[in-house]
């Protein structure tokens, strides 16, 4: 068990900078998730921590020991790969025990530890099978077994759930979290799936274009995103964005939305006359009696919840490309979403009056895309 530090880490491939100015402290026993769209550098960062990729600059420490120049085998880490990377010519028993054998442990000790790991992961009946005779979920557990049996200082996991079907993924997700809590081993987990990040992590590192955008708990990222990217990336469906001019109203700053005044947080008082980006999460928009009226363009009924689509009023449409807004799905800038959980029946073309609770409105600078300070 150990702390992990990235200090000024950079990685470049020729002229291309894959990772820039990467600084991060991970506490002992913490479950840290790197999340971001593909190509954001999260896997590269993990591979540099594992020693499978050389760094171009900076230092990496595990347990206070500088490991930047050490080979993967000398870093006291264990890794679970996306494709599991089980040794196909070895039985499950040998796969799990391989790392211990490399450490030079006596055969009896290896066997005892392998049996114990297999018991924990419910793999005992399969110990003498080859990986090809196992199901996807079982292979995944063998890969986990290979990691936990070594009792390393840190677990590194590179999208370990992405090859499982949806149901098994949810189940394995909670199993991994429980296992990590019980063993208390510092874990660095890479995923592109924000749901995994939000549900598993103590600390989430949101990355984009080789740079850290924000580090924080699920709570912090959800409620206080530092920029438009994080705001759009975290949450499903992602945050709605629109733009408008800050004006002074009788009760404080407001902006116009669909011909109505929307009250803004008090911190916007000093931004009067400026054009700003506003964000509100689909679940925070309230359907009420008073406020801007919008016509629903689509109603998606998901059983307990419903996603209501409506067109953003023309003057409020904010054109941002997808790379700037970290939305997972293809989002149409001219459409905003409302997520409601109630028994009311909604129909397309129905007109609803909306309320944007002032405490749930996020304000961003249109030039820097950073959250606007008060």
């Amino acid at each position, binding site marked *: 068990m150990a702390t992990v530090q990235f200090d000024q880490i950079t990685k470049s491939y020729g002229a291309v900078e894959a990772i820039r100015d990467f600084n991060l402290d991970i506490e002992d026993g913490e479950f840290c998730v790197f999340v971001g769209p593909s190509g954001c550098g999260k896997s590269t960062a993990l591979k540099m921590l*594992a*020693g*499978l990729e050389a760094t171009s600059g900076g230092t990496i420490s595990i347990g206070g020991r500088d490991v930047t120049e050490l*080979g*993967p*085998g*000398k870093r006291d*880490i*264990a*890794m679970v*790969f*996306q*494709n*599991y*990377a*089980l*040794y*196909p*010519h070895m039985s499950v028993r040998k796969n799990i025990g*391989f*790392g211990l054998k*490399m*450490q030079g442990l006596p055969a009896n000790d290896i066997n005892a530890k392998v049996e114990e790991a297999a018991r924990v992961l419910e793999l005992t009946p399969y110990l003498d099978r*080859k*990986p*090809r*005779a*196992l199901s*996807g979920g079982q*292979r995944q557990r063998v890969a986990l077994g*290979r990691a936990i049996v*070594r009792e390393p200082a840190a677990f*590194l996991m590179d999208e370990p759930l992405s*090859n499982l079907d949806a149901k098994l993924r949810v189940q394995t997700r909670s199993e991994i979290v429980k296992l990590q809590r019980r063993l208390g081993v510092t874990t660095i987990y890479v995923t592109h799936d924000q749901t995994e990040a939000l549900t598993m992590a103590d600390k989430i590192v949101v990355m984009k274009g080789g740079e850290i955008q924000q580090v924080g708990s699920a709570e912090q990222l959800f409620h206080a995103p530092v920029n438009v990217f994080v705001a759009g990336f975290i949450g499903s469906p992602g945050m709605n964005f629109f733009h408008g001019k800050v004006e002074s109203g009788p009760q404080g700053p407001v902006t116009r939305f669909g011909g109505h005044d929307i009250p803004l947080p008090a911190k916007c008082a000093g931004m009067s006359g400026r054009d700003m980006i506003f964000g509100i999460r689909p679940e925070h928009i309230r359907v009420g009696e008073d406020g801007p009226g919008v016509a629903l363009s689509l109603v998606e009924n998901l059983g307990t919840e419903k996603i209501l689509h409506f067109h953003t009023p023309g003057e409020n449409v904010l054109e941002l490309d997808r790379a700037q807004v970290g939305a997972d799905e293809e989002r149409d800038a001219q459409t905003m979403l409302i997520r409601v959980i109630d028994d009311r029946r909604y129909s397309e073309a129905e007109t609803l009056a909306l309320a944007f609770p002032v405490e749930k409105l996020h304000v961003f600078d249109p030039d820097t895309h950073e959250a606007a300070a008060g």
Partner: protein
Amino acid sequence: MQQRHPLNTIALYLTVLVTCGLLLFPIYWMVVTALQPASNLRAYPPQFWPADPQWNVFADLLAKHPFMLWFSNTILIAFATMTISLAVSILAAYALSRFRLRGGQGLGLFILTSKMLPATLLIIPLFAIFRSTGLVGSLWSVVIAQATLIVPFCTWMLKGYFDTMPPELEQAALVDGCSPLGTIFRIVLPVAAPGLAATALYAFVVSWSDFLFGRTFLTTNDESWTLQMGIASLKGEFVTEWNVIMAGSIMASIPIIIVYLFLERFLVGGLAAGSEK
């Protein structure tokens, strides 16, 4: 599953039969020719199975010629060529497949150029080298000469195989504390067994059937000849005993069949199945 039309089935079986017939007929004819006197060779109508098979042709061949010596020379050359070629090409192919080398792709193609040249073109420089190093007449000259042609092709065969193996396998072994060389021996080679078997078989067969290099470098005395040279020497200026030549050829094919049967279990693909999702 869709039911196949009976006519399609018949056509399929016919094609298989005709193809097998075409492939197996030369072997069958080799056996028939070996078992009848040379004088029957041009008999018309041809005898498809000799009335009186001359089984003693094999014993005669062994008695009259140093056949077993040629045989052991060829075995030695083929195993040495196969071993050296594999040892060199495994390392070369692994480096080409896995390491980001400056000019690596160009180097890979350059390795192939020696395979593109005709063997006869290489003979003169090789002969000059072997003469100055005193290797002419030694079995090693043939081993080295053959390896120069076999290594490039084996390197490409193995590179192709290594390319299909997920690099995460080796990365997992490295994280597990295995050394880079240990990773090759403990993980890469066992997983690449089908590719290695195919490559070994190729090297063995090419070396076994060589005539040109042997004929050029091993001419001095018939005790250092290879099987192919020995069999070719059975063709006389005035009389050619085709039955003896065919008997020699049958015996010369047996080791290839044995090597194939031994390597066959590795040749069956699918060993890598199960390492991934």
